[in-house]
Protein backbone atom coordinates (compact mmCIF):
# COMPACT_ATOMS: atom_id res chain seq x y z
CA UNK A 1 0.00 0.00 0.00
CA UNK A 2 1.15 3.49 -0.75
CA UNK A 3 1.32 5.90 2.09
CA UNK A 4 0.81 9.62 2.26
CA UNK A 5 4.49 10.42 2.25
CA UNK A 6 5.05 8.48 -0.97
CA UNK A 7 2.42 10.43 -2.84
CA UNK A 8 3.69 13.27 -4.82
CA UNK A 9 1.37 16.26 -5.21
CA UNK A 10 2.83 18.96 -7.42
CA UNK A 11 2.92 22.50 -6.04
CA UNK A 12 -0.05 24.63 -6.90
CA UNK A 13 0.12 27.49 -9.35
CA UNK A 14 0.51 31.01 -8.05
CA UNK A 15 -2.79 32.36 -6.79
CA UNK A 16 -4.23 29.01 -5.79
CA UNK A 17 -3.79 28.37 -2.10
CA UNK A 18 -4.95 24.82 -1.58
CA UNK A 19 -5.05 25.18 2.18
CA UNK A 20 -7.08 28.34 2.09
CA UNK A 21 -9.99 28.38 4.51
CA UNK A 22 -13.12 28.91 2.45
CA UNK A 23 -15.65 28.70 5.23
CA UNK A 24 -16.12 32.47 5.01
CA UNK A 25 -16.90 32.37 1.30
CA UNK A 26 -20.54 32.30 0.36
CA UNK A 27 -21.79 29.60 -1.99
CA UNK A 28 -21.57 30.23 -5.71
CA UNK A 29 -23.03 26.92 -6.85
CA UNK A 30 -25.16 24.48 -4.99
CA UNK A 31 -26.26 21.28 -6.71
CA UNK A 32 -28.76 19.17 -4.82
CA UNK A 33 -29.64 15.63 -5.88
CA UNK A 34 -29.20 16.31 -9.58
CA UNK A 35 -30.24 13.57 -12.00
CA UNK A 36 -29.83 14.00 -15.72
CA UNK A 37 -31.24 12.10 -18.69
CA UNK A 38 -30.55 12.05 -22.41
CA UNK A 39 -33.89 10.66 -23.55
CA UNK A 40 -34.27 7.54 -21.46
CA UNK A 41 -30.59 7.24 -20.70
CA UNK A 42 -29.76 8.46 -17.23
CA UNK A 43 -26.18 9.74 -17.10
CA UNK A 44 -26.10 11.65 -13.79
CA UNK A 45 -27.24 10.10 -10.54
CA UNK A 46 -28.01 12.13 -7.46
CA UNK A 47 -25.17 14.63 -7.70
CA UNK A 48 -24.87 16.99 -4.74
CA UNK A 49 -22.00 19.42 -4.63
CA UNK A 50 -21.23 22.81 -3.09
CA UNK A 51 -18.86 25.29 -4.68
CA UNK A 52 -17.74 28.33 -2.68
CA UNK A 53 -17.29 31.57 -4.55
CA UNK A 54 -13.85 32.63 -5.78
CA UNK A 55 -12.50 29.10 -5.74
CA UNK A 56 -11.39 26.56 -8.32
CA UNK A 57 -13.13 23.22 -8.41
CA UNK A 58 -11.74 20.45 -10.60
CA UNK A 59 -13.99 17.71 -11.98
CA UNK A 60 -12.11 14.52 -12.73
CA UNK A 61 -13.13 11.05 -13.77
CA UNK A 62 -12.88 8.59 -16.63
CA UNK A 63 -14.22 9.39 -20.09
CA UNK A 64 -17.99 9.20 -20.34
CA UNK A 65 -18.64 9.57 -16.61
CA UNK A 66 -20.72 12.71 -17.06
CA UNK A 67 -18.36 15.59 -16.24
CA UNK A 68 -19.21 17.63 -19.31
CA UNK A 69 -22.88 16.89 -18.87
CA UNK A 70 -22.77 18.10 -15.29
CA UNK A 71 -20.86 21.22 -16.30
CA UNK A 72 -23.48 22.01 -18.92
CA UNK A 73 -26.30 21.72 -16.41
CA UNK A 74 -24.75 24.70 -14.61
CA UNK A 75 -25.46 27.15 -17.43
CA UNK A 76 -28.22 25.13 -19.04
CA UNK A 77 -26.32 24.48 -22.25
CA UNK A 78 -27.98 21.08 -22.21
CA UNK A 79 -31.20 22.87 -23.20
CA UNK A 80 -29.72 23.01 -26.69
CA UNK A 81 -29.74 19.23 -26.95
CA UNK A 82 -33.12 17.77 -27.87
CA UNK A 83 -34.93 15.52 -25.47
CA UNK A 84 -32.95 16.04 -22.27
CA UNK A 85 -34.27 16.24 -18.73
CA UNK A 86 -32.81 17.39 -15.44
CA UNK A 87 -34.22 16.89 -11.96
CA UNK A 88 -33.07 17.99 -8.56
CA UNK A 89 -32.09 21.55 -7.77
CA UNK A 90 -29.25 23.69 -9.01
CA UNK A 91 -28.82 26.98 -7.20
CA UNK A 92 -26.46 29.65 -8.42
CA UNK A 93 -26.04 32.44 -5.91
CA UNK A 94 -29.10 31.05 -4.14
CA UNK A 95 -31.34 31.16 -7.20
CA UNK A 96 -32.86 28.08 -8.76
CA UNK A 97 -31.66 28.26 -12.37
CA UNK A 98 -34.22 25.76 -13.63
CA UNK A 99 -37.21 27.70 -12.39
CA UNK A 100 -39.62 29.07 -14.97
CA UNK A 101 -38.83 32.74 -14.55
CA UNK A 102 -35.10 32.31 -15.21
CA UNK A 103 -33.92 33.70 -18.53
CA UNK A 104 -31.14 31.51 -19.93
CA UNK A 105 -29.64 34.47 -21.76
CA UNK A 106 -28.99 36.25 -18.44
CA UNK A 107 -27.89 33.03 -16.78
CA UNK A 108 -25.27 32.42 -19.46
CA UNK A 109 -24.06 35.99 -19.27
CA UNK A 110 -23.20 35.39 -15.60
CA UNK A 111 -22.08 31.79 -15.99
CA UNK A 112 -19.58 31.78 -18.85
CA UNK A 113 -18.15 28.72 -20.55
CA UNK A 114 -14.89 27.82 -22.27
CA UNK A 115 -14.95 24.75 -24.46
CA UNK A 116 -12.43 22.02 -25.08
CA UNK A 117 -12.14 22.92 -28.72
CA UNK A 118 -11.54 26.62 -29.13
CA UNK A 119 -14.32 28.17 -31.16
CA UNK A 120 -13.29 31.65 -32.29
CA UNK A 121 -15.89 33.39 -34.41
CA UNK A 122 -14.87 34.09 -38.01
CA UNK A 123 -14.37 37.74 -37.14
CA UNK A 124 -11.50 39.96 -36.09
CA UNK A 125 -9.77 39.45 -32.76
CA UNK A 126 -11.32 42.65 -31.47
CA UNK A 127 -14.83 41.71 -32.58
CA UNK A 128 -14.47 38.31 -30.93
CA UNK A 129 -13.76 39.80 -27.53
CA UNK A 130 -16.26 42.63 -27.94
CA UNK A 131 -19.01 40.23 -28.98
CA UNK A 132 -20.41 39.53 -25.51
CA UNK A 133 -20.69 43.17 -24.39
CA UNK A 134 -22.03 44.21 -27.78
CA UNK A 135 -24.88 41.73 -27.76
CA UNK A 136 -25.65 42.93 -24.25
CA UNK A 137 -26.15 46.37 -25.77
CA UNK A 138 -22.81 48.07 -25.11
CA UNK A 139 -22.05 50.65 -27.83
CA UNK A 140 -19.54 53.01 -26.25
CA UNK A 141 -16.43 52.66 -28.41
CA UNK A 142 -13.83 53.75 -25.87
CA UNK A 143 -15.34 51.57 -23.18
CA UNK A 144 -15.27 48.57 -25.55
CA UNK A 145 -11.68 49.28 -26.55
CA UNK A 146 -10.61 49.45 -22.90
CA UNK A 147 -12.54 46.34 -22.02
CA UNK A 148 -11.06 44.36 -24.93
CA UNK A 149 -7.59 45.43 -23.89
CA UNK A 150 -8.05 44.53 -20.24
CA UNK A 151 -9.63 41.15 -21.04
CA UNK A 152 -6.86 40.29 -23.47
CA UNK A 153 -4.33 41.27 -20.82
CA UNK A 154 -6.06 39.13 -18.22
CA UNK A 155 -6.02 36.22 -20.63
CA UNK A 156 -2.27 36.81 -21.21
CA UNK A 157 -2.78 37.35 -24.91
CA UNK A 158 -2.47 41.12 -25.25
CA UNK A 159 1.25 41.25 -25.97
CA UNK A 160 0.91 38.74 -28.79
CA UNK A 161 -2.01 40.40 -30.57
CA UNK A 162 -1.99 44.09 -29.70
CA UNK A 163 -0.67 45.08 -33.12
CA UNK A 164 -3.24 43.11 -35.09
CA UNK A 165 -6.59 43.35 -33.39
CA UNK A 166 -8.36 43.68 -36.73
CA UNK A 167 -6.89 40.44 -38.10
CA UNK A 168 -8.99 37.32 -38.26
CA UNK A 169 -9.10 35.33 -35.05
CA UNK A 170 -8.87 32.17 -37.15
CA UNK A 171 -5.27 33.04 -37.97
CA UNK A 172 -4.18 32.62 -34.33
CA UNK A 173 -2.50 29.45 -33.11
CA UNK A 174 -4.52 26.89 -31.19
CA UNK A 175 -3.22 28.06 -27.82
CA UNK A 176 -3.82 31.69 -28.68
CA UNK A 177 -7.33 30.87 -29.86
CA UNK A 178 -8.09 29.21 -26.55
CA UNK A 179 -6.83 32.22 -24.61
CA UNK A 180 -8.91 34.40 -26.92
CA UNK A 181 -11.97 32.34 -26.01
CA UNK A 182 -11.16 32.89 -22.35
CA UNK A 183 -10.80 36.63 -22.95
CA UNK A 184 -14.11 36.58 -24.78
CA UNK A 185 -15.77 34.92 -21.83
CA UNK A 186 -14.21 37.41 -19.38
CA UNK A 187 -15.58 40.29 -21.44
CA UNK A 188 -19.15 39.42 -20.47
CA UNK A 189 -18.04 39.97 -16.82
CA UNK A 190 -19.33 36.60 -15.61
CA UNK A 191 -19.32 35.51 -11.96
CA UNK A 192 -18.65 31.88 -12.73
CA UNK A 193 -16.49 30.41 -15.49
CA UNK A 194 -16.97 26.81 -16.55
CA UNK A 195 -14.05 25.25 -18.40
CA UNK A 196 -14.36 21.93 -20.18
CA UNK A 197 -10.86 20.55 -20.72
CA UNK A 198 -9.60 23.98 -21.79
CA UNK A 199 -6.00 22.82 -22.28
CA UNK A 200 -6.43 19.33 -23.66
CA UNK A 201 -5.47 20.33 -27.20
CA UNK A 202 -2.58 22.57 -26.24
CA UNK A 203 1.18 22.24 -25.97
CA UNK A 204 2.86 22.30 -22.54
CA UNK A 205 3.75 25.99 -22.74
CA UNK A 206 0.21 27.10 -23.61
CA UNK A 207 -1.14 24.71 -21.01
CA UNK A 208 0.96 26.21 -18.27
CA UNK A 209 -0.06 29.71 -19.33
CA UNK A 210 -3.68 28.71 -18.98
CA UNK A 211 -2.99 27.19 -15.59
CA UNK A 212 -1.28 30.40 -14.44
CA UNK A 213 -4.25 32.29 -15.78
CA UNK A 214 -6.63 30.22 -13.68
CA UNK A 215 -4.51 31.09 -10.65
CA UNK A 216 -4.91 34.78 -11.41
CA UNK A 217 -8.59 34.62 -12.22
CA UNK A 218 -9.65 32.75 -9.11
CA UNK A 219 -9.30 35.81 -6.91
CA UNK A 220 -12.23 37.32 -8.81
CA UNK A 221 -14.13 34.46 -10.40
CA UNK A 222 -15.51 31.11 -9.37
CA UNK A 223 -14.06 28.50 -11.69
CA UNK A 224 -15.17 24.95 -12.36
CA UNK A 225 -12.79 23.04 -14.60
CA UNK A 226 -13.01 19.59 -16.14
CA UNK A 227 -9.65 17.98 -16.79
CA UNK A 228 -8.16 14.62 -17.59
CA UNK A 229 -4.77 15.75 -16.42
CA UNK A 230 -4.33 14.77 -12.75
CA UNK A 231 -1.30 17.01 -12.34
CA UNK A 232 -3.28 19.90 -13.69
CA UNK A 233 -6.21 19.21 -11.39
CA UNK A 234 -3.93 19.18 -8.38
CA UNK A 235 -2.04 22.30 -9.47
CA UNK A 236 -4.97 24.58 -10.18
CA UNK A 237 -7.81 23.56 -7.90
CA UNK A 238 -8.83 24.10 -4.31
CA UNK A 239 -11.28 21.28 -4.40
CA UNK A 240 -11.63 18.21 -6.51
CA UNK A 241 -14.71 16.16 -7.40
CA UNK A 242 -14.26 12.63 -8.65
CA UNK A 243 -17.04 11.36 -10.93
CA UNK A 244 -17.50 7.74 -11.86
CA UNK A 245 -20.27 6.30 -14.03
CA UNK A 246 -22.53 9.26 -13.45
CA UNK A 247 -22.07 9.41 -9.71
CA UNK A 248 -20.08 11.75 -7.55
CA UNK A 249 -17.80 9.33 -5.71
CA UNK A 250 -15.77 11.74 -3.69
CA UNK A 251 -15.55 15.48 -3.26
CA UNK A 252 -13.17 17.36 -1.01
CA UNK A 253 -10.09 19.53 -0.69
CA UNK A 254 -7.67 18.80 -3.52
CA UNK A 255 -4.79 18.02 -1.16
CA UNK A 256 -6.83 15.43 0.61
CA UNK A 257 -8.21 13.82 -2.55
CA UNK A 258 -4.72 13.49 -3.96
CA UNK A 259 -2.93 12.38 -0.80
CA UNK A 260 -5.46 10.56 1.22
CA UNK A 261 -8.62 9.69 -0.70
CA UNK A 262 -11.37 8.07 1.29
CA UNK A 263 -12.59 5.88 -1.53
CA UNK A 264 -10.69 3.05 -3.14
CA UNK A 265 -11.99 4.01 -6.59
CA UNK A 266 -10.64 7.54 -6.28
CA UNK A 267 -7.26 6.23 -5.32
CA UNK A 268 -7.20 3.79 -8.21
CA UNK A 269 -8.14 6.52 -10.63
CA UNK A 270 -5.66 9.16 -9.53
CA UNK A 271 -2.85 6.67 -9.38
CA UNK A 272 -3.66 5.69 -12.93
CA UNK A 273 -4.78 2.17 -12.25
CA UNK A 274 -7.77 2.66 -14.57
CA UNK A 275 -9.51 5.34 -16.58
Amino acid at each position, binding site marked *: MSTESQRHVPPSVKGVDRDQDMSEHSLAIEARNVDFYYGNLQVLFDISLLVPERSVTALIGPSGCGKSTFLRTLNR*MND*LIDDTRVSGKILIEQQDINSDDVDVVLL*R*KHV*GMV*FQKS*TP*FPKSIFDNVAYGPRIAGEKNKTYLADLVESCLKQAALWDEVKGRLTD*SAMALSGGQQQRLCIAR*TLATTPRIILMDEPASALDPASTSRIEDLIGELCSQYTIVIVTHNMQQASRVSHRTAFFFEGRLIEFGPTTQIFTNPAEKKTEDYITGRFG
Partner: protein
Amino acid sequence: MSADSVAAPKITFTPGADNRVRRRLLWSNLVRQACRIAVYSAIVVLLVLLSVVFWLSIGWLDAQFLQSGTSRLAERAGIKAGLWGSFWLILLTAVISLPIGVGAAVYLEEYASDNRLTRTIKTNLANLAGVPSIVYGMLGLAAFVKMFGLFGGLRSGLQLNLGLLVVPLPFGKTVISGALTMSLLILPIVIIAAQESLRAVPRSIRIASLALGATRWQTVWRQVLPAALPGIATGAILAISRAIGETAPLLMAGAVSMARIYPGGIESPMDLLDPSKVGAAPFSAYTTMPTAIYEYIKIPEEEFAHVAAAGIVVLMIVLTVFNAAAVVIRMRAAKKVKW
Protein backbone atom coordinates in the same frame (compact mmCIF):
# COMPACT_ATOMS: atom_id res chain seq x y z
CA MET B 1 17.69 -18.27 -40.01
CA SER B 2 18.51 -14.62 -40.42
CA ALA B 3 16.33 -12.44 -42.68
CA ASP B 4 19.09 -11.32 -45.06
CA SER B 5 19.63 -14.83 -46.31
CA VAL B 6 16.46 -14.40 -48.45
CA ALA B 7 17.23 -11.91 -51.24
CA ALA B 8 14.43 -9.34 -51.76
CA PRO B 9 12.99 -9.54 -55.31
CA LYS B 10 14.12 -6.80 -57.64
CA ILE B 11 11.61 -4.00 -58.04
CA THR B 12 11.01 -2.00 -61.21
CA PHE B 13 9.32 1.29 -62.03
CA THR B 14 8.62 0.63 -65.71
CA PRO B 15 5.66 -1.49 -66.82
CA GLY B 16 7.79 -3.49 -69.22
CA ALA B 17 6.10 -6.73 -70.19
CA ASP B 18 3.69 -6.87 -67.26
CA ASN B 19 0.36 -6.92 -69.05
CA ARG B 20 -1.74 -6.36 -65.94
CA VAL B 21 0.07 -3.15 -65.15
CA ARG B 22 -0.11 -1.97 -68.75
CA ARG B 23 -3.86 -2.60 -68.97
CA ARG B 24 -4.36 -0.63 -65.78
CA LEU B 25 -2.38 2.34 -67.07
CA LEU B 26 -4.08 2.20 -70.46
CA TRP B 27 -7.52 2.27 -68.86
CA SER B 28 -6.54 5.19 -66.68
CA ASN B 29 -5.46 7.14 -69.73
CA LEU B 30 -8.61 6.28 -71.67
CA VAL B 31 -10.83 7.62 -68.91
CA ARG B 32 -8.80 10.79 -68.76
CA GLN B 33 -9.17 11.35 -72.49
CA ALA B 34 -12.90 10.62 -72.37
CA CYS B 35 -13.38 13.21 -69.66
CA ARG B 36 -11.41 15.73 -71.66
CA ILE B 37 -13.58 15.09 -74.73
CA ALA B 38 -16.69 15.57 -72.60
CA VAL B 39 -15.48 19.00 -71.50
CA TYR B 40 -14.36 20.17 -74.93
CA SER B 41 -17.42 18.93 -76.79
CA ALA B 42 -19.65 20.90 -74.45
CA ILE B 43 -17.53 24.00 -74.97
CA VAL B 44 -17.48 23.54 -78.74
CA VAL B 45 -21.27 23.19 -78.99
CA LEU B 46 -21.68 26.27 -76.86
CA LEU B 47 -19.20 28.24 -78.94
CA VAL B 48 -20.90 27.24 -82.19
CA LEU B 49 -24.28 28.29 -80.85
CA LEU B 50 -22.96 31.57 -79.56
CA SER B 51 -21.14 32.42 -82.77
CA VAL B 52 -24.18 31.65 -84.89
CA VAL B 53 -26.29 33.90 -82.70
CA PHE B 54 -23.69 36.67 -82.77
CA TRP B 55 -23.31 36.28 -86.52
CA LEU B 56 -27.03 36.59 -87.08
CA SER B 57 -27.28 39.62 -84.85
CA ILE B 58 -24.62 41.61 -86.68
CA GLY B 59 -26.16 44.68 -88.25
CA TRP B 60 -29.34 44.27 -86.25
CA LEU B 61 -28.11 44.92 -82.73
CA ASP B 62 -27.99 48.69 -82.99
CA ALA B 63 -29.24 51.80 -81.24
CA GLN B 64 -32.62 51.51 -82.93
CA PHE B 65 -33.01 47.94 -81.60
CA LEU B 66 -32.19 49.00 -78.06
CA GLN B 67 -34.57 51.96 -78.21
CA SER B 68 -37.66 50.36 -79.71
CA GLY B 69 -40.47 48.34 -78.29
CA THR B 70 -41.74 45.05 -79.59
CA SER B 71 -43.08 45.29 -83.14
CA ARG B 72 -44.13 43.15 -86.07
CA LEU B 73 -42.17 45.33 -88.46
CA ALA B 74 -38.59 44.10 -88.53
CA GLU B 75 -37.05 47.54 -88.98
CA ARG B 76 -39.00 48.91 -86.03
CA ALA B 77 -38.64 45.90 -83.74
CA GLY B 78 -36.62 46.31 -80.54
CA ILE B 79 -35.99 44.96 -77.08
CA LYS B 80 -36.51 48.02 -74.91
CA ALA B 81 -39.98 47.08 -73.68
CA GLY B 82 -38.63 43.63 -72.83
CA LEU B 83 -35.70 45.15 -70.97
CA TRP B 84 -37.89 47.35 -68.81
CA GLY B 85 -40.45 44.61 -68.30
CA SER B 86 -37.75 42.16 -67.21
CA PHE B 87 -36.25 44.83 -64.95
CA TRP B 88 -39.52 45.32 -63.05
CA LEU B 89 -40.35 41.65 -63.00
CA ILE B 90 -36.96 40.67 -61.58
CA LEU B 91 -36.86 43.54 -59.11
CA LEU B 92 -40.23 42.60 -57.67
CA THR B 93 -39.45 38.89 -57.77
CA ALA B 94 -36.26 39.48 -55.79
CA VAL B 95 -37.99 41.76 -53.30
CA ILE B 96 -40.70 39.17 -52.72
CA SER B 97 -38.80 35.90 -52.87
CA LEU B 98 -35.49 36.67 -51.15
CA PRO B 99 -36.81 37.75 -47.73
CA ILE B 100 -39.40 34.99 -47.70
CA GLY B 101 -36.96 32.37 -48.92
CA VAL B 102 -34.15 33.26 -46.53
CA GLY B 103 -36.65 33.68 -43.70
CA ALA B 104 -38.10 30.25 -44.34
CA ALA B 105 -34.65 28.69 -44.44
CA VAL B 106 -33.66 30.39 -41.18
CA TYR B 107 -36.82 29.14 -39.54
CA LEU B 108 -36.37 25.58 -40.77
CA GLU B 109 -32.69 25.38 -39.85
CA GLU B 110 -32.42 27.53 -36.74
CA TYR B 111 -35.74 27.49 -34.96
CA ALA B 112 -38.01 24.63 -36.04
CA SER B 113 -37.80 21.54 -33.88
CA ASP B 114 -37.30 18.31 -35.70
CA ASN B 115 -40.86 16.99 -35.89
CA ARG B 116 -42.92 15.30 -38.54
CA LEU B 117 -44.27 18.52 -40.00
CA THR B 118 -40.90 20.17 -40.53
CA ARG B 119 -39.44 16.95 -41.93
CA THR B 120 -42.31 16.76 -44.41
CA ILE B 121 -41.75 20.36 -45.44
CA LYS B 122 -38.03 19.82 -45.86
CA THR B 123 -38.38 16.76 -48.06
CA ASN B 124 -41.12 18.31 -50.18
CA LEU B 125 -39.13 21.45 -50.92
CA ALA B 126 -36.93 19.40 -53.21
CA ASN B 127 -40.03 18.06 -54.93
CA LEU B 128 -41.37 21.58 -55.41
CA ALA B 129 -38.12 22.62 -57.06
CA GLY B 130 -38.73 19.88 -59.61
CA VAL B 131 -42.27 20.87 -60.60
CA PRO B 132 -42.41 21.97 -64.28
CA SER B 133 -42.54 25.73 -64.57
CA ILE B 134 -45.68 25.69 -66.71
CA VAL B 135 -47.54 24.35 -63.67
CA TYR B 136 -46.50 27.43 -61.73
CA GLY B 137 -47.75 29.48 -64.66
CA MET B 138 -51.18 27.89 -64.37
CA LEU B 139 -51.19 28.42 -60.63
CA GLY B 140 -50.20 32.06 -61.14
CA LEU B 141 -52.95 32.53 -63.68
CA ALA B 142 -55.59 31.21 -61.31
CA ALA B 143 -54.26 32.65 -58.05
CA PHE B 144 -52.86 36.05 -59.00
CA VAL B 145 -54.13 37.03 -62.44
CA LYS B 146 -57.72 35.96 -61.80
CA MET B 147 -57.69 35.52 -58.03
CA PHE B 148 -60.05 32.59 -58.50
CA GLY B 149 -62.69 35.06 -59.72
CA LEU B 150 -63.28 36.28 -56.16
CA PHE B 151 -63.31 39.93 -57.20
CA GLY B 152 -65.14 39.47 -60.50
CA GLY B 153 -63.65 39.21 -63.98
CA LEU B 154 -60.49 40.84 -65.30
CA ARG B 155 -62.33 43.87 -66.64
CA SER B 156 -64.97 44.13 -63.95
CA GLY B 157 -62.75 43.87 -60.88
CA LEU B 158 -62.17 46.29 -58.02
CA GLN B 159 -59.61 49.02 -57.63
CA LEU B 160 -57.98 49.63 -54.27
CA ASN B 161 -56.81 53.20 -53.87
CA LEU B 162 -53.83 53.44 -51.53
CA GLY B 163 -52.53 56.93 -52.21
CA LEU B 164 -49.80 56.50 -54.83
CA LEU B 165 -50.68 52.87 -55.37
CA VAL B 166 -53.78 51.93 -57.29
CA VAL B 167 -54.09 48.20 -56.85
CA PRO B 168 -56.39 46.36 -59.24
CA LEU B 169 -58.16 43.31 -57.85
CA PRO B 170 -57.72 40.76 -59.29
CA PHE B 171 -54.18 41.70 -60.28
CA GLY B 172 -54.79 40.81 -63.93
CA LYS B 173 -51.96 40.45 -66.40
CA THR B 174 -49.63 42.77 -64.58
CA VAL B 175 -46.03 42.79 -63.40
CA ILE B 176 -47.08 41.92 -59.86
CA SER B 177 -48.87 38.74 -61.02
CA GLY B 178 -45.79 37.72 -62.97
CA ALA B 179 -43.48 38.50 -60.05
CA LEU B 180 -45.60 36.52 -57.60
CA THR B 181 -45.66 33.58 -60.02
CA MET B 182 -41.91 33.77 -60.50
CA SER B 183 -41.44 33.99 -56.74
CA LEU B 184 -43.36 30.75 -56.27
CA LEU B 185 -41.20 29.19 -58.94
CA ILE B 186 -37.85 30.16 -57.46
CA LEU B 187 -38.69 30.03 -53.74
CA PRO B 188 -37.85 26.32 -53.40
CA ILE B 189 -34.47 26.96 -55.03
CA VAL B 190 -33.75 29.94 -52.80
CA ILE B 191 -34.81 28.07 -49.67
CA ILE B 192 -32.82 24.93 -50.42
CA ALA B 193 -29.67 26.89 -51.26
CA ALA B 194 -30.02 29.01 -48.12
CA GLN B 195 -30.64 25.93 -45.98
CA GLU B 196 -27.50 24.32 -47.28
CA SER B 197 -25.37 27.36 -46.56
CA LEU B 198 -26.84 27.67 -43.07
CA ARG B 199 -26.13 24.02 -42.39
CA ALA B 200 -22.53 24.53 -43.45
CA VAL B 201 -21.97 26.98 -40.58
CA PRO B 202 -20.38 24.96 -37.76
CA ARG B 203 -22.67 24.24 -34.84
CA SER B 204 -19.86 25.17 -32.46
CA ILE B 205 -20.20 28.81 -33.53
CA ARG B 206 -23.85 28.84 -32.52
CA ILE B 207 -23.07 27.13 -29.22
CA ALA B 208 -20.26 29.57 -28.44
CA SER B 209 -22.48 32.52 -29.21
CA LEU B 210 -25.34 31.24 -27.06
CA ALA B 211 -22.91 30.47 -24.25
CA LEU B 212 -21.90 34.13 -24.22
CA GLY B 213 -25.47 35.12 -23.49
CA ALA B 214 -26.66 35.83 -27.03
CA THR B 215 -30.28 35.26 -27.90
CA ARG B 216 -31.15 32.96 -30.77
CA TRP B 217 -31.86 35.89 -33.01
CA GLN B 218 -28.56 37.62 -32.15
CA THR B 219 -26.79 34.38 -32.91
CA VAL B 220 -28.52 34.07 -36.26
CA TRP B 221 -28.08 37.72 -37.22
CA ARG B 222 -24.51 38.28 -36.07
CA GLN B 223 -22.90 34.89 -36.55
CA VAL B 224 -24.83 32.48 -38.71
CA LEU B 225 -26.17 34.73 -41.46
CA PRO B 226 -22.89 36.58 -42.12
CA ALA B 227 -21.07 33.26 -42.35
CA ALA B 228 -23.73 31.81 -44.62
CA LEU B 229 -24.22 34.92 -46.74
CA PRO B 230 -21.86 34.06 -49.61
CA GLY B 231 -23.64 30.76 -50.12
CA ILE B 232 -27.08 32.30 -49.77
CA ALA B 233 -26.15 34.98 -52.30
CA THR B 234 -24.94 32.40 -54.80
CA GLY B 235 -28.18 30.45 -54.52
CA ALA B 236 -30.27 33.59 -54.80
CA ILE B 237 -28.42 34.72 -57.90
CA LEU B 238 -28.76 31.35 -59.60
CA ALA B 239 -32.47 31.44 -58.83
CA ILE B 240 -32.90 34.99 -60.14
CA SER B 241 -30.92 34.17 -63.28
CA ARG B 242 -33.33 31.36 -63.86
CA ALA B 243 -36.22 33.79 -63.45
CA ILE B 244 -34.68 36.18 -65.99
CA GLY B 245 -34.60 33.50 -68.65
CA GLU B 246 -37.91 31.82 -67.83
CA THR B 247 -40.68 32.20 -70.43
CA ALA B 248 -43.30 29.49 -70.19
CA PRO B 249 -44.97 30.46 -66.90
CA LEU B 250 -45.10 34.10 -67.94
CA LEU B 251 -46.86 33.22 -71.18
CA MET B 252 -49.50 31.58 -68.99
CA ALA B 253 -49.60 34.21 -66.30
CA GLY B 254 -49.64 37.42 -68.08
CA ALA B 255 -46.72 38.79 -70.05
CA VAL B 256 -48.19 40.51 -73.08
CA SER B 257 -46.30 39.66 -76.21
CA MET B 258 -46.72 42.02 -79.13
CA ALA B 259 -46.83 45.42 -77.63
CA ARG B 260 -44.92 48.52 -76.95
CA ILE B 261 -45.53 48.45 -73.24
CA TYR B 262 -43.49 50.08 -70.54
CA PRO B 263 -44.58 49.33 -66.97
CA GLY B 264 -45.64 52.61 -65.35
CA GLY B 265 -44.85 54.37 -68.62
CA ILE B 266 -41.20 54.39 -67.58
CA GLU B 267 -39.00 54.50 -70.68
CA SER B 268 -35.77 55.92 -69.33
CA PRO B 269 -33.91 55.91 -66.00
CA MET B 270 -34.95 59.56 -65.51
CA ASP B 271 -38.58 58.44 -65.29
CA LEU B 272 -37.66 56.50 -62.14
CA LEU B 273 -37.64 59.81 -60.29
CA ASP B 274 -41.38 60.16 -60.77
CA PRO B 275 -43.01 58.40 -57.80
CA SER B 276 -46.40 58.08 -59.46
CA LYS B 277 -44.86 56.22 -62.40
CA VAL B 278 -42.86 53.96 -60.10
CA GLY B 279 -45.97 53.28 -58.04
CA ALA B 280 -47.91 52.35 -61.16
CA ALA B 281 -45.24 50.05 -62.60
CA PRO B 282 -46.05 46.90 -60.57
CA PHE B 283 -49.66 47.08 -61.70
CA SER B 284 -48.99 47.64 -65.39
CA ALA B 285 -49.06 45.24 -68.27
CA TYR B 286 -45.59 44.16 -69.38
CA THR B 287 -43.52 42.04 -71.68
CA THR B 288 -40.13 40.51 -70.90
CA MET B 289 -36.97 39.87 -72.88
CA PRO B 290 -37.49 36.11 -73.30
CA THR B 291 -41.16 36.63 -74.15
CA ALA B 292 -40.23 39.16 -76.82
CA ILE B 293 -37.55 36.85 -78.24
CA TYR B 294 -40.04 34.00 -78.27
CA GLU B 295 -42.49 36.12 -80.23
CA TYR B 296 -39.84 37.18 -82.74
CA ILE B 297 -38.78 33.61 -83.33
CA LYS B 298 -42.35 32.61 -84.10
CA ILE B 299 -42.59 35.12 -86.97
CA PRO B 300 -41.74 33.32 -90.23
CA GLU B 301 -40.16 36.26 -92.09
CA GLU B 302 -36.43 35.86 -92.38
CA GLU B 303 -35.51 39.24 -90.89
CA PHE B 304 -36.92 38.16 -87.59
CA ALA B 305 -34.28 35.47 -87.18
CA HIS B 306 -31.85 38.38 -86.96
CA VAL B 307 -34.11 40.35 -84.64
CA ALA B 308 -34.40 37.34 -82.33
CA ALA B 309 -30.64 36.82 -82.43
CA ALA B 310 -30.10 40.44 -81.43
CA GLY B 311 -32.54 39.93 -78.55
CA ILE B 312 -30.70 36.81 -77.41
CA VAL B 313 -27.40 38.65 -77.40
CA VAL B 314 -28.89 41.41 -75.23
CA LEU B 315 -30.39 38.83 -72.87
CA MET B 316 -27.06 37.09 -72.57
CA ILE B 317 -25.22 40.33 -71.90
CA VAL B 318 -27.71 41.15 -69.14
CA LEU B 319 -27.27 37.69 -67.61
CA THR B 320 -23.51 37.98 -67.77
CA VAL B 321 -23.52 41.40 -66.13
CA PHE B 322 -25.85 40.05 -63.50
CA ASN B 323 -23.65 37.08 -62.72
CA ALA B 324 -20.54 39.22 -62.63
CA ALA B 325 -22.21 41.56 -60.16
CA ALA B 326 -23.15 38.52 -58.16
CA VAL B 327 -19.57 37.32 -58.00
CA VAL B 328 -18.48 40.72 -56.73
CA ILE B 329 -21.22 40.81 -54.08
CA ARG B 330 -20.28 37.34 -52.97
CA MET B 331 -16.61 38.13 -52.67
CA ARG B 332 -17.40 41.24 -50.66
CA ALA B 333 -19.60 39.22 -48.32
CA ALA B 334 -16.98 36.52 -48.01
CA LYS B 335 -14.34 39.09 -47.13
CA LYS B 336 -16.36 40.37 -44.19
CA VAL B 337 -16.30 36.90 -42.67
CA LYS B 338 -12.76 36.38 -41.48
CA TRP B 339 -12.28 32.65 -41.76
